[in-house]
Every structure is written in structure tokens, then in C-alpha cells.
């Protein structure tokens, strides 16, 4: 029987949240309304999730909800592309230099792709324009590959370091009360600073190099994962922490064997956010002061308002984003398989 003071202290240890985390995306709360009848297995009277071409079983309230229609989304994207083309054609007729505003997609591929050769350093072979050669489609593609690779390495390193540090720091802080409050004070302070505005500072300190980018990304990811880990631990059932103690586990063992695995499902959401976050920070870092990478390419093209090249770089960026996101989701799924 715990004394009131000990109980409060225990709950304080676990449940007092000093750091306000990023509001997590709201999770859908799909309950069947017929709670009583749902007790019998397979006896859902009003199945909430029904396939397309639904039967009348979808109840009034559920029927009101819109649905995600992949075909419509694809049609929408196609429509937007068509809109772009239409506006580009109109500009082609009315402007002297339509390529500085909105070039047609044909132009983007015809002129923009070889134009990217200008940013190619020749590392994969061939003679790039910077060494006296001409602009070619192949070299344009190679330049994309080269700089995507550089950016990808930076993102990967930053993500890996950041998640490791953030989770470790979160666990350490949860375990030791003084460290927790002290750390949270600092973390809160750092979180107040507008993240993307810190780029130039890292560049000043570490020079326009990969280290600056990686450090910047690591900083952002560490902070995010730190907060997410603290929140996840705070949301744990207090009994989950009390039970191992009653078995005699030390604090360290409790955190290593019980807490760390238990919070992975909750960290999943934060982890998947870290992918796009890292890319966003990378772009901010590279666009000002760097000498290579996708962001650098982007800022170079921006200096001459070459929209055709910017479009291609943006597409590469978007693709890499989706790839990173899927990769993180796959990783997370493997880590949470036990929770399903």
C-alpha cells in the first residue's frame, strides 16, 4: 500500500509533463456506436469501415463522412499539371521570356534537363560545362544523381544521429528527475527559436560544409525526438513502470527492457514526421551558403530565375521525400510488429 506522498511522487515522476510537445496529428477514433452489440464477435450492426459501393448498413452519421478517393486525387494532380500547361502556353504567347515565369513542360525537359549539367562536377565521368563540355541530358541526370546523393547522405546522417540522440536523451531524462527538469528547461528554450532561421548560424560556425548541414538536421531531429520520447513515456500506464520495480528491476533495466520497447508505437508518428522535417531543414541549410546538394542547385537556378531547372530539382526533392517517408514507415512497422 503506497503512502499518499509516495504515490504522488511516483505519479509526478512519470506523469508530470514539463515540456509541451508538438501536438501530434489527431488519431481517428473509430468506434462503432453500438457498443453493446459489438460485444458479440463479428456482430457489428453498423460497420464503420465499409468498402466502396457501400450497403445501407452505413449509418447516417458515418455516411456523412467524405472518403479518400485515390482516382480523384490522381485526376486532380493531372488537372493541376494540365492547368500548368495551359497557363504556360498562355505565357508563351504573351511574354517575351516565358521560361522565367512558367515554362511549358516540354521546354522543362528539353532545355531544363540538359541545363542541369551546369551543376555537374564530372565526378561520374564525362566533361561537364564547368570543364568546357556541353550540356547533355545524361549529364543533367548525373548532376541530379550527384547532388541528390549528397543531400541524401546529409539527411541520412542527420536523421540517424538525431533519432539516436533524441531518444537516448529522452529516456535518460525520464529516469533522473533533476536531469529531466534541467534538460526540459533547455529544450523548451531551444524549441522556441524559429528552427529554419538557425541555418546561417550553423554555417557560420562550421563553414559551408556537410558538417553544418548534418549538425543542423541532427539538432532539429534530436529536439523533436526528445520531446516525443518524453511525451510517450509520460503517456505510459504508470503500472507499466511500477510492475518491473515490484519484480526488483533496477531503474536502468526497467528503462532498457520495458520502457524503450513500450514507447516505440507512440514514437512512430514522431519518427515519420522526422523524415520530411530533415528534408526541410536540409533545404534551408543548403539554400543559403552551401556549395553542393539539391538546395544549392535550387538557389543557383533561383539566382537566374530558371524555372525549368527549379521544377526538375523540385520534382527530385519531392520524390526523395516520399522515398524517405516510406522507408521510415517501413522501419517503424518492423519495430512495432509486436504491437499489432
Amino acid at each position: 500500500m503506497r503512502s499518499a506522498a509516495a504515490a504522488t511522487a511516483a505519479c509526478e515522476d512519470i506523469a508530470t509533463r514539463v515540456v509541451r510537445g508538438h501536438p501530434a496529428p489527431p488519431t481517428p477514433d473509430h468506434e462503432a456506436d453500438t457498443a453493446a452489440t459489438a460485444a458479440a464477435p463479428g456482430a457489428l450492426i453498423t460497420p464503420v469501415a465499409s468498402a466502396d459501393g457501400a450497403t445501407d448498413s452505413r449509418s447516417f452519421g458515418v455516411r456523412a463522412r467524405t472518403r479518400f478517393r485515390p482516382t480523384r486525387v490522381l485526376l486532380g494532380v493531372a488537372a493541376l499539371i494540365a492547368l500548368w500547361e495551359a497557363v504556360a502556353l498562355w505565357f508563351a504567347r504573351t511574354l517575351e521570356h516565358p521560361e522565367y515565369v512558367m515554362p511549358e513542360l516540354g521546354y522543362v525537359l528539353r532545355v531544363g534537363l540538359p541545363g542541369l549539367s551546369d551543376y555537374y562536377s564530372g565526378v561520374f565521368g564525362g566533361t561537364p560545362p564547368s570543364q568546357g563540355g556541353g550540356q547533355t541530358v545524361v549529364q543533367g541526370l548525373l548532376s541530379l544523381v550527384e547532388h541528390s546523393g549528397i543531400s541524401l547522405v546529409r539527411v541520412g546522417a542527420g536523421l540517424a544521429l538525431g533519432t539516436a540522440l533524441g531518444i537516448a536523451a529522452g529516456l535518460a531524462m525520464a529516469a533522473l528527475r533533476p536531469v529531466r527538469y534541467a534538460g526540459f528547461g533547455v529544450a523548451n528554450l531551444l524549441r522556441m527559436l524559429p528552427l529554419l532561421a538557425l541555418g546561417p548560424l550553423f554555417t557560420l560556425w562550421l563553414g559551408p560544409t556537410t558538417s553544418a548541414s548534418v549538425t543542423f538536421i541532427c539538432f532539429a531531429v534530436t529536439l523533436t525526438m526528445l520531446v516525443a520520447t518524453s511525451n510517450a513515456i509520460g503517456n505510459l500506464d504508470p503500472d507499466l513502470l511500477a510492475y518491473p520495480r515490484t519484480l526488483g528491476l533496477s531503474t536502468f533495466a526497467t528503462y532498457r527492457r520495458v520502457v524503450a520497447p513500450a514507447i516505440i508505437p507512440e514514437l512512430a508518428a514522431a519518427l515519420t514526421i522526422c523524415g520530411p522535417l530533415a528534408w526541410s531543414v536540409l533545404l534551408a541549410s543548403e539554400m543559403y551558403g552551401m556549395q553542393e546538394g539539391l538546395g544549392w542547385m535550387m538557389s543557383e537556378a533561383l539566382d537566374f530565375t530558371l524555372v525549368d531547372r527549379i521544377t526538375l530539382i523540385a520534382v527530385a526533392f519531392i520524390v526523395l521525400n516520399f522515398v524517405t517517408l516510406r522507408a521510415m514507415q517501413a522501419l517503424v512497422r518492423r519495430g512495432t510488429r509486436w504491437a499489432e
Partner: protein
Amino acid sequence: MTTAQVGRPRAVAEAVDAPGSRVGSPPARSPRTAVATRATWSAAAWRVTGVVLVIALWEWLAARVANPAILPAPGLVVRNAIENFGGSPALAYLGLSETSYLGNLQYTAGVVLTAWAAGSMAGLVSGLLAARVQWVRDLTEPVNYVFGVVPVLVAAPFFLIWFGFGSTGQWVLVAFFSYVTVAGAGMVAALAIPPRFEEYAATLGLGKWSRVRRIVLPQALPSCLAALRVALAAAWGLQTVAELMGSEAGMGRAIAVRTGTGDVASVMALILILGIVAVLADLLFTVSTRKVLRWQ
């Protein structure tokens, strides 16, 4: 899901219901309340201690490095912020249209706050409608889906080219970002409302739009306000980066210029000021929306 509310209520309730708690009305200041108050005080004390420690560490590091061009001491940074706040000869020399930190701050804040407000409102309406009106969802989903995943920053060059490298382009960028953020959160929140709330309203005789106004909107509002808060916090950074890419004024422009001259103290001072303003704006937002969230 603001963290202050998650986790604590259950655990605290557990403490109260723990065996040994008294049945009947406890005295006004039970031992439990006293312990809780002491705990809160020590939490605040530790928080302050942490901040003080970091500032002390900063001082020590700066003294070790002994080079204000690499790591200026905290005092130097603060002095820089205060001295240049009202007017900065350095900025004037470097050819900015706004020659004080304050002037640049006003420029940045002006864009951020107006664009965020407009974009968020549009996002709120769009998101809630997209949860209930299929054609609205079909129309807005492509953009929201893509930019829910891809950082809006990638669209910055396009907006700056199409709308100019001045305040218009920056405004559109921040407004678009706010729109996407809030619309996404709003739609998810409105879709997640358990159907029985709308069914109840329907059995009272409320029509479709009445239900959207009186059930969907209030129920989804807490999530939307959280998204608004997140959008505002990120908008400051987004605007700064947009200004870094080319602007006639603004905190980002000032930072770019000072970075060019290698003036670390100024850059840190500018970032510090931005941070303070961001915190104040966030505080103002939280306080003014507290009334709307009383019921939670």
C-alpha cells in the same frame, strides 16, 4: 493532443483513489496537496536551474574560446540586440531599407501574422468542409496530400518568382503553408468525430449545415487550434528563410547580411529577438484561445 493534458489526469486521479485515501471530504490542505505543491515548486526551480546552467556553460565556453567572432558571450549578444534595436548604423551601411532591428522585425512580423491568419482561416473552412462535402475534398486533396508530406519550403522558389521577391511572394508562401497545415489537421479532426454526436443532433431536428456549424466545428476546433499554433511557430522560420533567399527587408535579410560579414554576435542577437517574439506570439495565442477550450 497537448501534452500537459495527457498522462497527468489519469495518474493524478490514481493517486487520489489510491488505497489509503480518505472517504468523505478531506480538509482544504490535505498532505497530498502540500506534497503536490512542493513538487511543482521544485519542478520550476529545476527548470530555472537548467536554464541558468546552460547560460553559465555558454559563458564559460565563450571565455575558453576567447574569440567573439566565433562564440560571443551571452552578455555581448544581449548588448548587440539592445544597441541595434532602435537603429543600426551597420545595417544602414550595408544598404538595407530597414536600418534597425525593430524595423526589420516589424516587416517580418507583419508578413507572418497577416499571412498566417488568412491562410489558417482558409484552411479551417476548407478542412472542415472537405470532411463533409465530397467535391470539396476531391478538389483540395491533391494539394493537401502532397504538401502534407513534402515540406512547403520546396515551393518557396516558385512563389518568390511568381509573386516577387518582396513581401507579396513571402506572404503567399506563409499563407499557403498555414492553409495546408490547418486544412490537413481540420479534415482529420472532423473525420474522427464519433458519428453519434451528429446523429444526436439529427434526432433533435438539426439540418446538415446546422450540424456542421454546431457539432463538427466545435468538436474539431481544439485540433484546429493546435494546428494553428504549430503553423504560427513554424511560420517565423519559413518567412526568415524566404527573406534569406532575397528580400529588401526583414529579420532574415538582416541575418543574411550579417552572416555575410561574419558577425556572429549580430546573427545570434537577431535570432534571439525572433525567438522572443515567437514565444510572445505563442503565449498570446494560447491565452486568448483558453476561453474557447475551457470545456475540455
